[in-house]
């Protein structure tokens, strides 16, 4: 091996070392947890009804929140990708805010909104409760993920050349037809990837639930919340099991994004 080759490998190794550091740190976190919990305990707690209730609650609330997010995210993301809003930087800042504000603060803001006119009157009139109840979980998950969703959808549409739409238009297709038959199918992979990421983000949401919803055991405690509740009440095994499940969901969904994304890199 000659001198320059050694230099080359030293250069690559020294940079890659930092990747290895991060990887070891993450690996260390996960492996110590796995060792601490052990397979038998994991299986025992995973079979507990407490875990299942929490898991099912998480599943359906996040699914509804994700669908709602996509309903807002696709049109807004497409608009941001194709048209220029007035004071676009300010508008984009506003759109990005809910995902960047500390989630616990978002929770406080949500609480405030549902305690002030007109929402407080509307919910009273309808006789429903949003805060400190299950619908609040969905509202919080939706609020936190929707900005994320808009950004991701915008990025997926940005990769589709507007020329495709121009050609479709010249062939006599009007804008809605072009949107549904050309833009959406072309952005399909990006949109599915966005959907999975948004869902995974919704599953991870906890901070905003802290004050807005609160953890009513067996009712509003989605998994991240249940991890916290079980931890402070000393049920370490249950907390760790659900924490593991959350990690598995996160890794699994990112793997799915990788499989779907193909060439369109989302992260």
């Amino acid at each position, binding site marked *: 091996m000659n001198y320059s080759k050694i230099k080359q490998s030293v250069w690559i190794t020294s940079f890659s070392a930092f990747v290895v550091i991060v990887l070891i740190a993450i690996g260390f976190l996960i492996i110590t947890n796995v060792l601490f919990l052990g397979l038998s305990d994991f299986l025992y707690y995973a079979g507990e009804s407490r875990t299942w209730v929490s898991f099912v609650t998480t599943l359906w609330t996040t699914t509804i929140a994700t669908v709602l997010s996509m309903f807002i995210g696709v049109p807004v993301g497409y608009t941001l990708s194709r048209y220029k809003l007035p004071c676009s930087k300010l508008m984009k800042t506003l759109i990005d805010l809910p995902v960047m504000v500390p989630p616990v603060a978002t929770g406080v803001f949500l609480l405030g909104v549902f305690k002030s006119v007109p929402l407080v009157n509307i919910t009273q009139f309808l006789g429903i409760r949003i805060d400190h109840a299950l619908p609040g979980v969905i509202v919080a998950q939706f609020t936190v993920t929707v900005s994320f969703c808009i950004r991701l959808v915008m990025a997926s549409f940005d990769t589709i050349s507007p020329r495709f739409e*121009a050609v479709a238009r010249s*062939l006599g*297709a009007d804008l809605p037809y072009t949107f549904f038959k*050309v833009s959406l199918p072309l952005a399909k992979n990006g949109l599915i990837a966005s959907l999975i990421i948004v869902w995974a983000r919704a599953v991870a949401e906890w901070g905003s639930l802290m004050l807005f919803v609160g953890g009513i055991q067996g009712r509003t405690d989605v998994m991240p919340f249940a991890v916290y509740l079980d931890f402070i009440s000393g049920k370490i095994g249950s907390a760790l099991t659900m924490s593991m499940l959350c990690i598995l969901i996160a890794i699994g969904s990112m793997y799915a994004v990788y499989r779907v994304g193909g060439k369109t890199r989302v992260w």
Partner: protein
Amino acid sequence: MIQIKNLNVTLGNFIMKNINLKINTGEYFVLLGPTGCGKTVLLECLVGIRKPDSGEIWIDNENITHKYPEERHIGYLPQDFTLFPNMTVQENIEFGLKAQKKDKKYIQSVINMLAESLNLSQLLSRYTQGLSGGEKQRVALARALAIEPKSIFLDEPLNAIDENTRERLSYELRSIHDKFGTTFVHVSHNLEEISDVADRVGIMNFGTLEQVDTIQEILRHPVNQYVAEFTRTKNIFPGSSISTDDGCRVLVNNTIWFHTKSKLVGNVLAIIRPEEIHFNKRHLNPSELDKNVFSGKIVKITNKGNFIRLEIDIGILLTVCTMAYIMYADTGVQKEDTVSVYIPPDAVHLIKKI
């Protein structure tokens, strides 16, 4: 017929001023200009994906300036053809007809007709990724032709195609044009690429349309220095001209008089087409020198592959001649040979000096 009336477009620093143009029905029209001259902008205005600031665009006695692209009944082929990658060739071709909710039988008959005349029958069920450049071009044309457009706009269609196939594809474009008789408007920056397909050519400068004519006329009689330089005319000499009985006499470089048939007096540029210069190996005595006959020495011979270029020093000027190799071999001249040169008065074209 397409008519552009006083079209103005401003895009940041780029300004396109007062474009007036008529394109006849069934014509193969080419917009030619260097990169960034605004030809694509003009095409985008015609297609309807860019709004002009003022002016009007008419197609067949219908003002379409403010119409959406889908209401214009035109075809649009951008660079690299942008075939929909999520559809098969057949779905690509029938896209426009389906969008217009034509009935199934009609769609099928159109596809059969196009597949046959554009030789696409084997490709119909394939996706567009693996197609060759020529196949992509035919599919894109079929897709545009399916809706029976009044005219088809092509934006640098041969740009991304390699040198060898380009000639075949431009020939194919012309033959499809002749077969269907649709008006073609083709944007290009490459003179060679379009010289055998265009009926008429419009030369664009940055934001202005300089000259509209047949390719032959543009090459022989460019209206100004810009057009002459863009069409890579070799012999452009500044001089001053005075009027004579049957034209002008131009004094170039204070030493040489050219006789010409064009009538333009004052400070001018004399343009001499290289192909029309005659030369002979026979040496002439000064007494034999007649109107536009000069004695010169060959200073450079360049082999350009399919033709030969000679540079001849007549007095002080360098003249450039081009000829086929066989003809060059016949003349038997070599470098450093002294030759006599004759420039027909027709071949000298005068334009105003800017």
